[in-house]
């Protein structure tokens, strides 16, 4: 069965309108400040996978400039994962000395005066405790927590330790429709990152439409992908769509064909071998490439046949973004599968190098003030929805 028929999204989602989108949201420091306070500090953000914290005492320190903080994620002796600000309760020094990283410890001990915390964040040792005063109460001075919840192995955190909305309710159907995919079995991980000198939305926009594929990916994916999106659905601020291959795909190059014969490889390989959730590629078309799901505000999950990949866009300032692109495969069982993965993920890396090529120049050019708006076409519906969703938080 071939791919479904493309819709006219503007008719399906009239609430998004069809007007040009002002570029001020990409450039204004004042708008960015409101994104920080009213959006990022008030939503759930993905920080890690559970596989990153395999044992009791495993921790990861994640710098989050958008929260003005760095968050320690740690697995306790009870197996539960908790999150804390990396700030000593004494005089505020970092408890974990590094700026980022990971490790395994039984205790966290501040290098300033030796205050020590257990894996639950409780303050368990204060040198010269008897010198403190009655106003100091040890049990009240654990590490400051953030809320942590896990969906399908993805660890999310919320700056408010008791958020009004649970992660499950926040993600809603955007998450439930992606449940059941074997994320936990795809533990062969290839991760790339870079700091981009552009607004986070410019970076994220490039991964939110297929219109660009025939031009920017003329090198790595010269033919094969449809430039339209399919099965677009909006779930509150979250959104999803599907990317399909054209009916007549390219003849794979010799090494691509070898890679496809040997295993789970690239997004350009056709055919379904893993059970996708029923709402994803509902007709089980062999032309299905991948699902493009956006968990608002900044986390993209792409599931497909035999692998998945994610993008995340961490705003560092109004004009700087940390991008993380991660590919997840089943662990290779033999050299052929290892080769197949290497080819698939190298080609994907190269496509990401093509995706990121325009971002800094776009931001720099827009700063000139020469253009006040951008014109989005019907197939850029996910961008239109994104700008509207951000705007609703920022103006709330």
């Amino acid at each position, binding site marked *: 069965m071939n791919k479904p028929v493309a819709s006219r999204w503007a008719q399906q989602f009239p609430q998004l309108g069809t007007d040009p989108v002002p570029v001020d949201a990409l450039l204004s420091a004042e708008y960015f400040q409101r994104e920080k306070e009213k959006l990022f500090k008030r939503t759930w953000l993905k920080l890690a996978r559970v596989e990153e914290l*395999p044992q009791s005492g495993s921790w990861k320190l994640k710098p989050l400039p958008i929260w003005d903080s760095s968050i320690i994620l740690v697995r306790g002796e009870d197996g539960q994962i908790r999150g804390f600000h990396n700030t000593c309760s004494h005089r505020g020094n970092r408890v974990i000395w590094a700026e980022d990283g*990971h490790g395994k410890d039984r205790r966290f001990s501040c290098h300033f005066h030796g205050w020590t915390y257990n894996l639950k964040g409780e303050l368990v040792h204060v040198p010269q405790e008897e010198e403190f005063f009655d106003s100091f109460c040890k049990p009240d001075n654990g590490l400051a927590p953030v809320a942590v919840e896990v969906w399908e192995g993805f660890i999310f955190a919320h700056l408010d330790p008791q958020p009004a909305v649970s992660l499950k309710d926040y993600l809603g159907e955007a998450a439930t429709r992606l449940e059941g995919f074997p994320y936990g079995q795809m533990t062969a991980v*290839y991760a790339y990152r870079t700091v981009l000198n552009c607004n986070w939305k410019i970076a994220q926009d490039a991964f939110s439409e297929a219109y660009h594929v025939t031009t920017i990916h003329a090198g790595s994916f010269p033919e094969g992908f449809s430039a339209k999106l399919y099965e677009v659905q909006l779930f509150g601020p979250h959104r999803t769509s599907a990317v399909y291959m054209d009916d007549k795909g390219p003849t794979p*190059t010799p090494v691509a064909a070898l890679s496809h014969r040997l295993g789970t490889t690239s997004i350009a390989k056709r055919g379904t071998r893993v059970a996708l959730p029923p709402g994803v590629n509902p007709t089980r078309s062999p032309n299905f490439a991948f699902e493009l799901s956006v968990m608002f505000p900044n986390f993209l999950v792409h599931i497909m046949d035999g692998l998945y990949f994610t993008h995340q866009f961490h705003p560092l300032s109004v004009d700087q973004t940390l991008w993380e692109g991660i590919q997840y495969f089943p662990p290779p069982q*033999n*050299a052929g599968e290892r080769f197949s993965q290497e080819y698939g993920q*190298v080609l994907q890396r190269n496509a990401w190098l093509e995706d990121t090529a325009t971002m800094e120049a776009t931001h720099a050019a827009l700063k000139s003030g020469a253009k006040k708006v951008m014109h989005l076409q019907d197939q850029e519906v996910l961008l239109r929805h994104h700008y509207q969703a951000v705007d609703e938080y920022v103006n709330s």
Partner: protein
Amino acid sequence: MSSDLLPASYRHLEPWVDRWALASQAERETTRRASTGAQLKAFYDALVGEGDGIVAHLNALPLDQLPAPEQRLLYLMLSLAEVAPHVELYRGDPRVPFSFEEERFIAEHGAAPGFNGDLYALPNRPA
């Protein structure tokens, strides 16, 4: 040259070992960028017809216990994966055309020798 760099049936590929039997993706990338299109094509041509046979040979052995000659043969295949898009898709350009600065793209697994996907086991992995 030592006579056991590669398994006996692949000795004819030994001239490629020095430049392309590289243990980490970062080394394979760096070497690819430092090569000319003609060098990439010559290596590609030497390997591409052998792919199925090499994989059949290697698949008979456990991936994590390959003897040194077989491990080198796998590294040659991983270099083929690195080089192939430049020969097959980018007209011999040793860099990705119209792309972001590759040197600024950090692969968290990039420097790990013999990396088979176990990212979280790597020391000094950033957050």
